[in-house]
């Protein structure tokens, strides 16, 4: 077996893990399985692509449109990513205002909110397809040659960057959640929203912060995925099962757990492709999900119930 499977699994797992963190946060604080999360990835990628289209020409005109160092993209992409993340955050906050927030205020059952998120997911996907068509799009058209990284493995600079960005974001988020007052409030709301109010925590503010973090990470994950492969309206939907499997495997509410879950799913997919065949890749997340639910429903780092 080629050791390349390890790096392939880590790269895929980084994107899945980053997406799963947003999912696990919204699940633990808003207490519903958010089916729109995959579409936030796709919207994040498309919004970044749109901004990049405007910005790319502008930066090229200023003579700073060339690729940065060994990477396949210029300064236009990181700047567009910031704008894309901002727009994705606005999109999620609008969706919460007009849909999920309304249902929460009416005291809707969880299943109603889940179904609403399922419907919103289809609508978001359809709008994306209507605006951008189903044809794949690319954030960069530069060709990259995979370089040796040791132990017989090869990776492109873009691929290595996605792993580094994921590690940095997860570390930063972990510090925010465990060390900051916002993080304490998030953990408190996750445990008992009613008591959080008694403690003086504005639960609605914590919910908004959760959307902001979740949408920001979804956008980064979408752009990472788009940078390494391509952008399609269904890219988020296709990632939905691996995202849920990673979040549940890691233990709902656990940020390191979601990342580890993502890496395990990514590695399992890579090994399956190499050992069994590429046609079985899509089934891996489903098998992992079922096994976790049977053997350890609380996941690796989940709370005991």
């Amino acid at each position, binding site marked *: 077996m080629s050791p390349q499977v390890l790096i392939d699994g880590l790269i895929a797992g980084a994107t899945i893990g980053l997406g799963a963190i947003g999912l696990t946060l919204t699940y633990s604080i808003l207490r519903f399985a958010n089916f729109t999360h995959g579409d936030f990835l796709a919207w994040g990628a498309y919004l970044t692509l749109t901004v990049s289209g405007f910005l790319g020409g502008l930066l090229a005109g200023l003579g700073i449109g060339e690729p940065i160092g060994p990477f396949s993209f210029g300064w236009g992409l990181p700047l567009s990513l910031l704008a894309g993340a901002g727009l994705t955050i606005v999109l999620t906050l609008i969706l919460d205002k007009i849909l999920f927030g309304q249902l929460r205020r009416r005291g809707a059952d969880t299943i109603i909110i889940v179904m609403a998120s399922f419907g919103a997911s289809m609508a978001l996907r359809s709008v994306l397809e209507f605006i951008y068509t189903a044809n794949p799009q690319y954030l960069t058209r530069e060709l990259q040659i995979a370089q040796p990284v040791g132990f017989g493995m090869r990776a492109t600079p873009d691929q290595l960057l996605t792993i580094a960005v994921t590690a940095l974001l997860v570390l930063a988020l972990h510090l925010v959640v465990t060390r900051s*007052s916002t993080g*304490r*409030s998030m*953990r*408190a709301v996750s*445990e*008992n929203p*009613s*008591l*959080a*109010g*008694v*403690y*003086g*925590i*504005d*639960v609605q503010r914590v919910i908004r912060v959760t959307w902001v973090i979740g949408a920001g990470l979804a956008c980064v994950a979408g752009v990472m995925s788009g940078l390494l492969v391509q952008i399609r309206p269904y890219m988020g939907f296709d990632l939905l099962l691996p995202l849920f499997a990673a979040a549940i495997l890691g233990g709902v509410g656990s940020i390191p757990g979601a990342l580890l879950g993502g890496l395990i799913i990514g590695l399992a997919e890579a090994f399956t492709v190499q050992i069994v065949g590429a046609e079985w890749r899509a089934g891996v997340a489903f098998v992992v999900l079922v096994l976790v639910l049977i053997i350890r429903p609380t996941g690796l780092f989940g*709370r005991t119930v």
Partner: protein
Amino acid sequence: MTALAVKGFQAGYDPDLPIVKGVSFAVKKGEAVTVLGPNGAGKSTLIKAIAGQVACLGGQVTLGGDDITGVPSYALAKRGLGFVPQTENIFAQLTIRENLQIASELVEKRRRAGQIDKMFDMFPDLKLRPNDLAGTLSGGQRQMLAAARALLTDPPVLMLDEPSAGLSPKLVGQVFETLARVHAAGVTLILVEQNVRAALGLASRALVLVDGELAHDGPTDALQDSTTLGRLFLGNRTREVAR
């Protein structure tokens, strides 16, 4: 001066079926008032609704003269209305210090560390292992942490929902000693309690709620006689049972 007043107050979980039905009373600053009554009388619903945890269906609540009817619980905490729920009154997955840190965010930044230290001095048990998860505390220690959390902000009014629930008699004594100290420091107390003897020992005034309505409002001295309490709790049946 009135610390807290409710007027024609109605509250409950279903607008068509109020549990608290038109209750009116006023609590003076520095007073200790206990709310008594049989199971299902609406005592906890009354106190939770005042604290913004249950929907107010009618009437008015004022805190220090300001209308706080329908104000969400987090905003009430900021306004100085402390509330300690009966159960699940601490964050078990957070450390003891983190529980206090969250509460301390309602006070000025420069006073936060000092207020936390003050609570550790008031409840020395909590100081022993501040970085342990609050879920590892015993029942009595949990009540101490819940009280410390509420007192940390120096609330002018503190409401407690059955602080003795589930505690051994020794721990009940400790909790009520602490509450007596808190009251002596000038905090207005409103206490819902099933342990009538302990509550009457602390409070100077009692409200008796029966079937969601105020059946009695007066000094606790008048209720020391168990026959009077029985009559209020059970109506005329007390006499019939005595025969």
